[in-house]
């Protein structure tokens, strides 16, 4: 599972600090442009957030990093390797060093919480049962759900399911962990728990974290660096405090959640009066 | 893991049921017997001038009892006769008299052709592996069309000469050369 240290070193030399580098990424889906030429650096050991309105392709970005989608042009480099160019087998190997937390949690519904967390360990290692048990309980302890280990996923609340999924994503001790909308649809308490967990785990386990979210306040509170994307471009980037200070009107509108501004309230349409008089839509 | 055990047991039962079904289909339904494997029995040859629609796997009977199968049919390139290989159940091996007759008969009016062996009277010499029943002691298939045309021809010419022994009297038993 260990990386060929020498090879990595040579390629990574210019930007040793960046675990993920995205260069001039273009991506289209069904002739709809999702990204046109974005550049993103994810620094090792930091929490990097990608924010943007719904439908701006944030989840697509995570799938591109995970190699589930391939860019039309440009490249996505993770640990010095161009993800799109990897063979199927290499890709699966490099994914073992990534953890991804899906919005829904994506727990396997037919096995218990314990088995869910044990799943990647059983698949990838030949550890004895007792060691798997210890590891799983450790991961569940880290997210505060050791007591729930015999429950089935259907019996968990949304926030708990997401924490179990986090424990499962941590099972293989990944160097990179990606969160897809971790705060969406959470009550204030589980939101607080998740915010704290993400920051603590990132620092304690020396991981690199990418968060994709549109929850401005929570993301601002834990991110080290933020990219704001919309319309396939990067609209603003910087440390949270810098973004608050400066930034274009667009960024200000997004951060402060103003209903009208550079992004109009109305979807583009012909004149209102015209529409009212015309029967046909 | 308790559940895994029941799963395995039911899958096992499923498999056993399927194998039993196959056995029943083999033995009870298709009446498969393991005697007539090609190399199991011993083979004799028979020559016919016309085999009709006899096919490989056709029955070989003695007194109506199946004792073997047709395993191969070839044309003799020199004499233009058909040579038929018969695999005989080893139980009856070496007990068929040497002068047995082989006739190609039809099961029912429209059924398949099969070979009927009529044991001869030789008591000391028996058919051995590879022995041949010559043209002289075989009856070829009766082809219905030939029979009819022959019968019609017999009617036409036989109107004046009723006593013609070759065409008029017994057209059915005379094989067409």
């Amino acid at each position, binding site marked *: 599972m260990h990386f060929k240290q020498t090879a990595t070193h040579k390629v990574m030399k210019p930007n040793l600090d960046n675990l993920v580098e995205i260069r001039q990424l273009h991506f289209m889906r069904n002739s709809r442009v999702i990204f046109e030429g974005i550049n993103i650096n994810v620094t090792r050991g930091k929490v990097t957030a990608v924010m943007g309105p719904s439908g701006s392709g944030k989840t697509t970005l995570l*799938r591109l990093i*995970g190699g*589930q989608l391939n860019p039309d042009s440009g490249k996505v480099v993770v640990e010095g390797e161009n993800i799109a160019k990897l063979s*199927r087998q290499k890709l*699966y*190997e*490099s*994914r*073992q060093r*990534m*953890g*991804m937390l*899906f*919005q*829904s949690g*994506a*727990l*396997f*519904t037919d096995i218990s919480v314990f088995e869910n967390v044990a*799943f*990647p360990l059983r*698949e*990838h290692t030949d550890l004895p049962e007792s060691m798997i048990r210890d590891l799983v309980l450790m991961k569940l302890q880290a997210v505060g759900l050791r007591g729930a280990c015999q429950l089935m996923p259907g019996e968990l609340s949304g926030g708990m399911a997401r924490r179990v*999924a986090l424990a*499962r*994503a941590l099972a*293989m001790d990944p160097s990179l962990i990606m969160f897809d909308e971790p705060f969406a649809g959470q009550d204030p308490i589980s939101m607080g728990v998740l915010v704290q967990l993400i920051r603590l785990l990132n620092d304690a386990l020396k991981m690199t974290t990418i968060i994709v979210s549109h929850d401005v306040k929570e993301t601002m509170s834990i991110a080290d660096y933020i990219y704001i994307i919309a319309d396939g471009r990067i609209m603003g980037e910087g440390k949270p405090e810098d973004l608050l200070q400066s930034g274009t009107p667009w960024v200000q509108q997004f951060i402060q959640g103003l209903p009208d501004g550079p992004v109009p309230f109305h979807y583009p349409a012909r004149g209102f009066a015209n529409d009212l008089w015309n029967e046909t839509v | 893991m308790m559940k*895994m055990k029941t*799963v*395995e047991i*039911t*899958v096992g*039962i*499923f*498999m056993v*049921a*399927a194998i*039993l*079904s*196959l056995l*029943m*289909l*083999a033995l*009870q*339904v*298709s*009446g*498969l017997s393991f005697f007539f494997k090609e190399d199991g029995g011993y083979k004799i040859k028979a020559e016919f001038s016309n085999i009709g629609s006899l096919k490989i*796997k056709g029955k070989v009977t003695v007194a109506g009892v199946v004792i073997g199968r047709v395993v191969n049919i070839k044309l003799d390139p020199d004499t233009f006769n058909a040579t038929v290989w018969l695999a005989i159940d080893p139980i009856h091996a070496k007990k068929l008299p040497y002068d047995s007759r082989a006739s190609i008969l039809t099961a029912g009016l429209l059924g398949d052709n099969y070979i009927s062996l009529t044991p001869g009277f030789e008591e000391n010499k028996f058919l051995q592996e590879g022995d041949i029943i010559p043209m002289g002691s075989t009856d070829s298939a009766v082809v219905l069309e030939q029979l009819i045309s022959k019968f019609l021809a017999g009617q036409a010419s036989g109107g004046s000469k009723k006593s013609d022994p070759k065409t008029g009297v017994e057209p059915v038993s005379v094989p067409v050369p």
Partner: protein
Amino acid sequence: MLIKRIQLLGRIGLAFLGDIGRATLILYHALVGKPDWVHGFGRLIQQLYSVGVLSLVIIILSGLFIGMVLALQGYTILVKFGAEHALGQLISLSLVRELGPVVSALLFAGRAGSALTAEIGLMKTTEQLSSMEMMGIDPLRRIIAPRFWAGQISMPLLALIFNCVAILGGYTVGVEWLGVDTGAFWANMQSAVDFYADVMNGVIKSVVFGTVITWIAVYQGNDCTPTSEGIGRATTRTVVYSSLAILGLDFFLTAVMFGET
């Protein structure tokens, strides 16, 4: 106008080719490579249970009734010609050659094929397949492959059981109820049915059907639109496509196997 029609035809053709290509790729990635015997066996058993054992009830019941109906219908016709002793032959040949493989495959498509599609489609919709991919576990090999093998193994076994039960059902009605002679029933059957030409060809048919049904089912599940409506449509497509494929292939296989005689 004509150009538009031709364009539409072309689009349908391309979509169809794309489907076949993706389905082949899925199968290729799922099946080619080093098999994992240690874990794979347990998974196969698990799938044999949910695909095969759980289909047993419907297969056995349908088999029983089809055999009984065949005997009833066959008897009423045969008795007119005074040929009721050929009942065994009629039942066994029509079952072993045609009805057994085809009807059990249709039932299998409805019972197991749709369940497979729905299961895989739901896994896709709830991102379980994606998350498995991101864990570095290939869902094609972990999820699709054991289901495919299980379907392929189960189908001929189910068809054999179906045949057997149906013949017993026919025996019950024909011999026990309508009074056909037992000896004539079995003897005619045995002289008419050839083990290799009839029984084994039927088994070959059901192996082909099993492959096609499971292939369609796992492809539709894996390729469905990840919404609840998408799952519903994919499930319907599985049943419709597999049924059509079964009937079409059956004609083709029958022509190849039994066409000469």
